[in-house]
């Protein structure tokens, strides 16, 4: 898919009408992710119950690809265990780096697999992976993320 097709068919819907944008009440983990060179700036918020991501939301601003990618990610990780979500992030980043091309493996990503063509657009790779990287970081190192509910407890 060329870039214009990608915008029209996938990105615009999530960018203009995101399902998971906003501020969550009492999130368990909060982490800000920034691409300093382009100004993409998101704050990802996760609600985690018994090791399962019960809800994911994001706030902030950035280009359409960064915003759409994080919204699509939220669709995919809600309902998954932390471990599963970390593994999925690995698959997504592998796809964007062009290292994972196996269709069966990419099926796991569902709609997020539509961003595969970003692997041919090096200037936009950072935008596409921002949300996934931020989530991976907060799940692998929750001590670095703001642990809001425990602060309130």
């Amino acid at each position, binding site marked *: 898919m060329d870039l*214009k097709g990608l*915008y*029209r068919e996938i990105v615009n819907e999530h960018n203009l009408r995101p399902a998971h944008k906003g501020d969550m009440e009492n999130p368990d983990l909060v982490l800000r992710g920034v691409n300093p060179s382009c*100004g993409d*700036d998101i704050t990802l918020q996760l609600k985690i119950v018994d090791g399962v991501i019960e809800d994911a939301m994001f706030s902030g*601003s*950035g*280009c359409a690809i960064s915003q759409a990618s994080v919204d699509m990610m939220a669709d995919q990780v809600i309902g998954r265990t932390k471990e599963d979500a970390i593994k999925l992030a690995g698959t997504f980043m592998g796809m964007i780096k062009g290292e994972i091309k196996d269709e069966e493996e990419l099926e796991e990503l569902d709609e997020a697999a539509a961003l595969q063509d970003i692997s041919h657009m090096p*200037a936009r790779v950072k935008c596409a992976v921002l949300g996934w990287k931020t989530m991976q970081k907060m799940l692998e190192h929750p001590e670095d993320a703001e642990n809001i509910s425990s602060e309130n407890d």
Partner: protein
Amino acid sequence: MSRPEDYRKDFPILGKGDYIYFDNAATSQRPNAVMDAIKDFYENSNANPLRGLYDWSVDATERYENARKTVSDFIGASSTEEIIFTRNTTESLNLVAYSYGLSNVEEGDEVVISVMEHHSNILPWQMVTKQKKAKLVFLEPDEEGVITPEEYKSKITEKTKIVSIGHVSNVFGITNPVKDIAAYAHEMGATVIVDGAQAAPHIPVNVQNLGADFYAFSGHKLMAPMGIGVLYGRKKLLENMNPFLTGGEMIEYVTREDATYAELPHKFEAGTVNAAGAVGLEAAIKYLQNVGFDFIEEQELKLTTRMMEGMKKLPYIKIYGSSDPAKHSGIVTFTMEGVHPHDISSVLNDDHVCVRAGHHCAQPLMQFIGAGSTARASVYFYNTEEEVDRFLEHLAGVRSVMGY
């Protein structure tokens, strides 16, 4: 009368495909004359200049020093001793900050720059003022991008030791009143440094007339190769400064414990120099002089006027800086409602239009104008009205691609 088409044939890259190159403020393209000069240097005169006693080295030295003379005449310096070759404007400004700033700014003093500066004219002064416990003061432009006399007279005071200011802004394209600012700064006893990176390719520069104590610019924005830049400094100031980098070729005499330094300008050119780059810069200056600043300014104004008029017809576009195209130096910085600048640039790239998007290495200015990032189209004399029309057509299509 000249036309851009007369010159386009000299630039091989401009003949490749249907690309519209509108990122000239980041770097210009290079004509054959420049690339031929570099090749000729390596094919016919290549030896380490300033060292060897044999023909080739003598020849390389002569070509390197001829380039220095051309640069000296180009900016109206009073002698070639005042011209130091560097890698780029960034290195030139760092040289001044380290070798002049750190020795002449003391605790409680003030350094004045503007909020419009490129990071290369901000960070060196943050370093100096932090290290010396001095204060960094920012001049701010009005809504048209102008630094008014009231503004600079209120901020440049007897406490000011250094005023370092961009000649032409890389975001607004506006030419700052450097001559007036320099005169006032000198009255207050300050030293004046001018970042000419965005000016030297577009307007005639005379450092003495301007009142610049130091003037920095890069070759690559005026058609020379990347990796060659210039620092002009008044001889009296340069003579009293310590070297920036030390090592080969900048010495007079070295013992195990000590060294004396070479004469100007070699004191500031440690290590093997970029002689081929300097030769390329000389070729670029000669090419530029042949085109002439009259034509460059006329063509840039024609293109900028057409571009700004076309953009005004798109109500969702906001242009930054002056409303007068004559005050843009070929640079039009803009945002599009609802569309991030990176998406603008990516969509335009799909149509083979090259524009810059981001913070343009001027984050304090982005914060000042309240934009996280912006898009920037910048033209040079080899761009055409037909290119501007095609750019405007593609620009008008961006919002529909983005789902509006």
